């Protein structure tokens, strides 16, 4: 079969790009242990607010001293919209949605996961001190661009665990109406 020279160049270019992109995924998965932050834990999306895991959102410290952040995504805000976290400390995020699919993206960090109604997304990461924008990166409706939150990361020595009970609301469990205070880098 005769293939025109320009057609060949185009085909080889596309083939090269496919090899590049699939190769980069394989490299990330095999050498850097990068995988989708999947965590098959389910929840009734109609009863998230009553579920003991999410009845109180925000930061909690478990019996082993590990820091957890429990967050709900709903159109068009994160609950809580702002949290204070310790720096250089592994923090496990647990995120779920009550309505539609959202994307929990801590901008300029490796923290990112899809948030699906009915599932609890989970990943663990840590941060240097500073402020971080949390954006929704899955289009979720007309107010999607206002769906933003903030993480305030302070030196671990200056951070105190909110409350003592595992489900007590922390001082940072404050709901800020998205768009009034948070940044707007999300799209």
């Amino acid at each position, binding site marked *: 079969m005769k293939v025109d020279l320009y057609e060949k160049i185009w085909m080889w270019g596309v083939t090269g790009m496919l090899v590049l992109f699939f190769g980069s995924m394989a490299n990330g998965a095999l050498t*850097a242990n990068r995988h989708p932050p999947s965590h098959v834990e389910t929840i009734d999306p109609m009863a998230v607010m009553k579920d003991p895991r999410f009845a109180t959102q925000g930061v909690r410290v478990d019996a082993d001293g590990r820091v957890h952040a429990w967050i709900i995504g709903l159109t068009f805000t994160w609950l809580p919209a702002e949290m204070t976290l310790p720096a250089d400390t592994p923090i496990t995020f647990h995120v779920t949605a009550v309505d539609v699919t959202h994307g929990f993206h801590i901008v300029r960090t*490796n923290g990112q996961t899809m948030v699906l109604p009915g599932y609890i997304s989970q990943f663990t990461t840590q941060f240097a001190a500073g402020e971080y924008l949390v954006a929704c990166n899955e289009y979720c409706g007309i107010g999607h661009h206002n769906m933003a939150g903030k993480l305030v990361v302070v030196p671990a020595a200056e951070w105190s665990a909110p409350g003592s009970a595992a489900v007590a609301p922390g001082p940072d469990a404050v709901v800020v109406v998205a768009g009034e205070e948070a940044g707007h880098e999300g799209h």
Partner: protein
Amino acid sequence: MPPGLPKHPIGTFAFVGLYAVLFVVGWFAIYTFIYLARQPVTP
């Protein structure tokens, strides 16, 4: 085709080739120095 013209549009190829090279270099820079540098999260 008028005589004296090259058989292929060499100048256009040069522009497209330069674009491709810049794309690949930029892509590798972002992949290496941003994506891989951020390290993976722990599931």
